Structure formats: C-alpha cells, structure tokens
C-alpha cells in the first residue's frame, strides 16, 4: 500500500472506527495528527521523489475497471501536496476544537470531509478525483441539515439549496468530464487516467473552439462548486449555517476542489480552452462579479458569519483571475492563494464559532470591546482578518501580488487589453476587503464592551490548533518560497502545453 493511499484512507477508516464505537475525539485527533505528520514528511521527501521529470511523486495505481479504463491511481505534484497540507492542517484544527459535548457524528463528518478532500487532491484518475469530492459533500449536506445554526426551517432550506446547487454543479461537471474523456480517447478505449489523457492531449490536441466549449462546461461545473458568480448564492448562507468544523473544512478545503480541478484537469488538457476569446471574456466578467459585486455585498453584511461567508466567495475571484491569466506566476500565485485563503478562513470560522458559543450572537452591532478581556483571542483573530485583507507578511499577500502581477503581464506586451483592465478593476477588491474586515475588527474588538458581553480567552489546549494555523499564515507569508519551490511542475506543465 502506497503512502498516499494511507493518507487518503486513514481519516475514512478512523471515521468508520468511530461509527463502530471507538472513542470519538481520541480517534479523530489521533488520525488527524498522524496524517499531518505524514504529509509534512512527504513535503520533505518531495524534491528527491519527484526528480524524474513528470513532476509527480509517490505514484501508484490499481486498475478497478478495464474499459472505460478507471484506475485508483494516486500521485502528488506540488499543487496537490500543498492542498494536502492545507487539508491536514485544517482537519487537525477542526477536529481538535470540536467540543466534548458534541455527538460523535461531528468527528465522523469532519473525517469524511477530510478523507474525501485528500482523495480528490491526491488521485490521478479523473473518476476518483470526482468521486472523492462527492464523498466529501455528503457529510456537508447532512451536517448543515442536522446541526446547522438558526431556525429549523431556515437550516433545512439552506441545506437543500446547497444540496441542489452542488448536486447540479457536480452533474454538469460529470457531463463535462465525460465529454472530455470521450474526445481524448478518439476511437480508442476510454480512459479516465489523467496521465494517459495528458499524453493524448499533447499528441493530438483538440481544435481550439472545441477546447473552449469543453472548458466552459467544466468551468460551469467546477465554478458552481467554487461559488463563481453568478452561481455563488448557495455559499455564504451555507457557511454561515454550517456547524463550525464543517464550515472550516468546507470553506477552507473543499471549496478549493473546483479550483484544483481547473488547474489539474482543465488547464493541462485544454491548454487553449481558457484563452478562447469568448471563454476568457465570460470568465473575466464572472470573476469580476465575484470581486466587485460580492465585495459590496460583503460590506453590507451586519453579522460576522455572513461577512466571512461572503468574503470567502469574493476572494475566489482573485484565484479565478490567476487561472484566467494562465501565466506561470499567476498560476503559482493562485495556488499560494488557495492555501492562504484556506488557512485564514478556517481560522476565522473557528474563532467565529467560539464567539457564537460564548456570546450567543455574531451581530456586529451587538459586539464590541472584546479586546480588553480576550487579548489572545483578539490577536489570533487579527492574524486571520489581516491575512484575509492581504496584509504583507501574511500568506495571502504574496499570492495576491503574484496573481495581479502575473495577470497584468499575461499577454507579454505593454498593451492594455481586457485582462489588464480586469486587473485594474480587481485591485479595488483589496480596498473593499480592507473596508469590511477592518470594520468588523473594530466593531468586535475595539471600543467599550457592551454590558453583559463577556468572553474569556481560549485555554492553552484550545489554542494549539489556532496558533498552528496562525503560524502557518505567518511562515508562508514571510517565506513564500517554501511553498513556491514545490510548484516547479506547474510551470513545466504549462511550458509543455504551449
């Protein structure tokens, strides 16, 4: 059994064990720590393991179906390894902070989401990439419907909306993937194996216009999962309603799946698809909707969970911008931003969950002055909030700068095209982020505390995962090359596709 298979199966087996009666917290935390350690070990071994050109490491494959050929193949390049690290970190933080009085299903759901996410990021077969993502979605739906916040009817409505949006998105995606696979297998056997598809794409590329069409279908499918404007309306209510660990995992990890799919499947197999003029324009239009419209929407929110949910939708716009530009720098920046956003939003949702538990409200107007009695909590929140608005020195900044620079210089000339205009417009998003995040920070922590509003700092054991997340933001923010070094394969794949 290869090490990546162990990474994927460990959370799933742990979930099964808890369901069979193993002690919930000990099992899930143990599995999460073990997985985090294994993934860290893989990071250190990656360079020597991936020396063999393709940029993939730790590969293994098991055939599960002959024709159409489906293999349970695993393998990691820099992108998937960074996302596996993100998953492992967020999972650890999520299961650690599940309070003792919560039912075991919290742990089971978190572990299943983690296992699904890891499976999706580490598989090298389109079928399993898709399948593992779906596996991760089920617990999300269930947990929102069962243990979500708010009124019974509201919670159910949100669960259904999420289910139907994501379900329909996945099915559009499935149709797009089937189309892609059929086109590339040309009269021969069907294969879902990514490496075989890639070889076929290099050998006989599809006509440009068809690439654009398929890319667009995949964009709609993946885009719904990532909450691309105007397919985004499920996301903010879902995160605001979901139980804290599920919100952390879904906003932090699972949402990256759609972006990962675009980078891993759509871009290498349809290298010219994203550059077709109408696709490019549609994508720019949609992502600017994410940044500008969702920016305004976020500013209008009056409750912290809504601010976080909407800001998460908004920040996807930057990553889409990096994908639309498709240059080496922009893509690397997009991956870095995926990691940074995942960590920062998970940290913020964890803290917001704590506030909701202790104070019973997240209405900005009712909060205030928390800094005076919970200084450590305030500091941790500041890490997340300032990272999220792109403060230099924290992880998001490097990613955003790379995306903007890469996108601006994407056509290799000094001419001002649609992409350059898009960058200019998108830059306003940074200002809007600052507006709502700083306002939220001021409303919650500064000024005088409202009467009867008291909250204590997390004790040391509760701080550990939060500090870990904050530290990750700081470390990657100060030394982004630690992760960027892993992304050489991204540029190699891009150059090969040109």
């Amino acid at each position, binding site marked *: 059994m290869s090490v990546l298979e162990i990474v994927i199966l460990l959370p799933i087996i742990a979930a099964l064990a808890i369901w069979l009666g193993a002690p919930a917290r000990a099992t899930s935390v143990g599995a999460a720590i073990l997985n985090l350690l294994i993934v860290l070990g893989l990071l250190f071994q990656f360079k020597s393991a991936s020396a063999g050109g393709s940029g993939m490491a730790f590969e293994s494959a098991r055939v599960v*179906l002959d024709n159409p050929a489906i293999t349970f193949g695993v393998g990691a390049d820099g992108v998937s390894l960074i996302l596996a690290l993100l998953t492992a970190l967020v999972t650890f933080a999520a299961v650690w902070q599940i309070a003792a009085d919560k039912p075991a299903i919290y742990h089971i759901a978190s572990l299943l989401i983690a296992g699904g996410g890891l499976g999706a990021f580490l598989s090298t077969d389109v*079928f399993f990439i898709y399948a593992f993502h779906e596996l991760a979605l089920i617990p999300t739906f269930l947990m929102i419907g069962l243990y979500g916040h708010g009124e019974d009817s509201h919670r159910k409505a949100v669960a259904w909306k999420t*289910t139907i949006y994501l*379900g329909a998105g996945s*099915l559009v995606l499935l149709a797009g993937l089937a189309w892609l696979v059929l086109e590339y297998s040309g009269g021969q056997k069907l294969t879902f194996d990514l490496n075989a598809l890639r070889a076929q794409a290099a050998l006989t590329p599809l006509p440009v216009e068809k690439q654009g069409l398929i890319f667009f279908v995949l964009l709609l499918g993946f885009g719904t999962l990532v909450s691309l404007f105007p397919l985004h309306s499920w996301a903010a209510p879902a995160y605001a309603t979901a139980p804290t660990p599920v919100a952390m995992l879904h906003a932090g990890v699972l949402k990256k799946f759609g972006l990962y799919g675009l980078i891993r499947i759509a871009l290498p197999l349809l290298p010219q698809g994203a550059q077709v003029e109408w696709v490019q324009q549609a994508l720019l239009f949609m992502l600017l909707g994410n940044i500008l419209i969702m920016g305004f929407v976020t500013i209008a929110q009056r409750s912290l969970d809504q601010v976080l949910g909407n800001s998460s939708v908004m920040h996807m716009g930057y990553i889409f911008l990096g994908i639309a530009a498709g240059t080496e720098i922009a893509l690397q920046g997009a991956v870095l931003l995926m990691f940074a956003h995942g960590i920062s939003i998970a940290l913020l949702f964890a803290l917001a969950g704590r506030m909701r538990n202790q104070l019973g409200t997240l209405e900005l107007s009712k909060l205030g002055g928390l800094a005076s009695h919970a200084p450590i909590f305030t500091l941790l929140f500041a890490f997340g909030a300032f990272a999220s608005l792109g403060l230099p020195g924290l992880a998001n900044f490097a990613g955003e700068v790379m995306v903007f620079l890469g996108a601006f210089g994407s056509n290799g000339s000094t001419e001002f095209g649609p992409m350059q205009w898009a960058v200019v417009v998108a830059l306003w998003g940074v200002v809007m982020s600052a507006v709502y995040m700083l306002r939220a920070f001021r409303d919650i922590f500064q000024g005088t505390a409202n009467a009867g509003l008291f909250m204590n700092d997390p004790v040391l054991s509760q701080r550990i995962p939060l500090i870990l997340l904050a530290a990750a933001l700081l470390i990657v923010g100060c030394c982004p090359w630690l992760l960027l070094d892993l992304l050489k394969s991204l540029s190699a794949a891009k150059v090969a596709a040109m």
Partner: protein
Amino acid sequence: MSVFSVEIFLVVFGLALLCLEAFVPTLNRRTLAGISIGGVALAFILFVFASKSATDLPAFVQPYHQLDTLAVFYKGFALVITLLVLWLTVESSAYLTKFTPGGNYSELFSLPIFVCVGMMWMASAKDLITVFVSLELVTVSFYVLVAFARKSNLALEAGVKYLILGALSTGVLVYGIAWIYGVTGALSFEGIGAALALPATSKSAALLAAAFLLSGLAFKVAAAPFQMWVPDVYQGAPIPVTAFLSVGSKAAGFVVLTRTVEAFVVKGSIIASEVQGLLIVGGALTILLGSLPAIFQTSVKRLLAYSSISHAGYLLLALGAGSARFDLNPGGVVAFYLATYLPMTVLGFLVLAVLRAHGGGEDLQDFRGLSKRSPLLALAMTLALASLAGLPLTAGFMGKLFVFTGLVDQAAWGALVCAVIGAATGFYYYFRAILVMYTSDSQKADLLKLSVGTKIGAAALAVVIVVIGVYPKPLQHLLMPATVSVVAH
C-alpha cells in the same frame, strides 16, 4: 450437467413445495421457509457449477434456448433475487400473518420459485413465443403475489390494478408479436433481425409492430408513459413482493427488451434509428416522470416506487444510447446497471420490512431517529439511498457513469439534460430520506432488536454496494463476453 437442469430442478421443487403444503398442513411456516430457501440456495450452487463447466444444452431445447453470457447472468440474477425475496418474506412474517386470512401465507414460498423459473427461462429465450410463455408465468404469479395480503384494502386495490393493467399490456404485447410475425414472417429474434435488415420489408408496418411490442414491454418495466400503476401497486403489495416487482420483474422486462431491441437495431435494420430514438425519448420522459413526482412523496414505499420508475428511465437510456467504445454493449450495460440496482433496492425494502415488523409504518416520519434506534440499519439505508441517488463510490454511480458517457458519446444532449435534472432532483428526495433518519426527535426511542440474519444480510448488502462502487472490475468481466457469443461448439 447443464444449466437447463437447474430450471427443471426448480420447477419440480416448486411443485413439491406446493404439494408439501397441501398434504402436510401441520408443517409450520418457519420450516417451510427454511426448505424453500434451502432449495433455492441449492439450485444457486448447482447453477454456479453448471454455468462454469458447460454451456451445452440438450438437443430438444436448442431451437428455443440459448446460453450466452447475458442469459447466464440473468439466470443467476433471478436466483439471487428469489433467494433475497424469500428471506424478506421471513423478515416480514409479522405483517403477512396479520393481513392474510388465517395467517396462512405458505404459497408465498412456492410462487416466487415459479417466477424465478420463468425469469430464468426468459433469459435464454430465442423467440417471442418462449418469451411470451415465460413472461406469462412470471406475470400471472405476480398477480397472485401482489394481492396476497387479502385483508388489506390497499393490497386488494393494488392487485386489481395490476391484474387489469397487466392483462391489457399482455394484450398489447401479443398484438405486437402478431404484427411482427406478419411483417417479418419470423418469431425468432434472429429471423426478425434478418428480415428487418432487408430493404424490402415494409418500414411502416415494422414500426407499428415495434411500437406495440415496446409499449407492452414498457408496462412490464414501468417505463413512461405506462408507469401510472407503479406507485399504487408498490404501495399495496407486501414488502417482499414489492421488492420482487421492483428488481425481479424489472430485470425480466429488461432482458426481453434487450433481446428485442438487439433484433430491431441489427446492422442495416430499417427501423434502427427510430427504435433508438424511441428508447432515448422514452427514457428521458421516464426519468422526469419518475423523479419529479418523487419530490412530493411522504411514504417511503411510494418514494421507492417513483425511484424505480426513474431508474427504468436510466436503463432505457443505457439500452438506447450505448457507446460502441465500452467493453460492454448496451445489453451488458443494462445488465450491469441491474446488478447494481439489486442490492440497493433490496436493502431499502429490507429496512422497510424491519421497521414494519417493529410496529413502524412506511412513512418518512417512521424513519425519524433510526440512527439512534439502530445505527447499523441507518448506515445501511444511507448507503442504499446514496447509491440510488448515484453518488460516486457506491454501486449506483457506476451505472450512471455508463449512461452519461453513452449519452455524451451519442450526442443525445436533450436526454442528457433530462438525466441531469433527474439525478439532481434525486439528490433532493433521497437526501431528505437520509436526513430524516438522523434527526433525533422521534416518537419511538426504543432500540431495534435485530435478528442475526437481518444484521448479516443488511451488512452484506451494504458491503456489496460499496465494493461494486469501488471495484467494479469483476462485475464488468462477468458481463464482458456479452459482446461475443460464448456458445462455442
């Protein structure tokens, strides 16, 4: 030993069982159940050996009987589902005792065996007469089975509905057979296919014949627009019979449909594109008429009925739009789909039967808090529903993947859109049922005491669902030589 002798054995065994019941009235039902299950299990074991060792048939049946991979598969399928249904009958004995006069339901152990023989015979039919005779053996047995719980009004209503509509559909089917004989001068599938490939054959008459035949069969498999009877009949029939109808009767219908369609769309056939178009349009319609009304159902049995309709739609699409690039031909894909459909449906009905036996009803409300009352059943039911919804890593997804890929390959975009809509609504209603099981505010909080058999059965079916979903290769290989006839002499 030939597979054929297994069928002979089952006929004799079924008759013996009837005699046993008549001549030894003191025999209690538990013994009878044991004997019947043992007999079918023995038949299954014999079948496994026979299907491996020999494919040759006695000379006198060879003109009517063939043993290709598909036939062998469907025979095995019939034996498995019969075994499961007999077991379900034991599980729902409380309900049956209550709703049959004198609590006497012993025939329920012999009738499924006759259905099984009919299905096995039909699977290897080479001509429409054999099809008709064996189909009637199945259908007439089902008339009795559906109305079996005579003290329940719902069952009587279901029985009458099924009898009248079933008889009507039989009429339509016979009419279609007569027409096809008139047009092609043949009753064997081979002869029909050969005649249809001749340009001289009258196209309009052939189309009329095809329309009648397909309509008659559409009723049997619960495809639109002949699906109206399904919810009422499923709701009224005893649970084991509903499961049998949903899986067994559907498989029987589809094996005939597969053979018929294969004859209609042979190379050079003058009506190939029309028949394929009809299947695709009918499949798309069936999916919509199955999944959209399912949204409003509050009875799990009716929910499963509508689900059964929409699955018939996917099966029709699989038959109409297979991809030439799979190792499985359309008939193989249908068989694959049915093999995945069996465990999930039976599991769903098993959970219903267990709840029924513990005093619950068949409403969604009765599923409340099931996760607390029996985590095993809740998980098994979750897997069954997720598989019915077609979620990846469960058996149901593999079938859907074949259907979707085939549709894309055939560029049947309209049908693809309908399939996507159906699958997306499926997420809604199957998930609603899953959600209910995990909501804890239940009127009943007692733990369900399950028998060891129930536990093992539920766990085994759940494992099968996951295994096929993760590792479908063995099943594919079982069906693969379907593309080339294995009857090598």
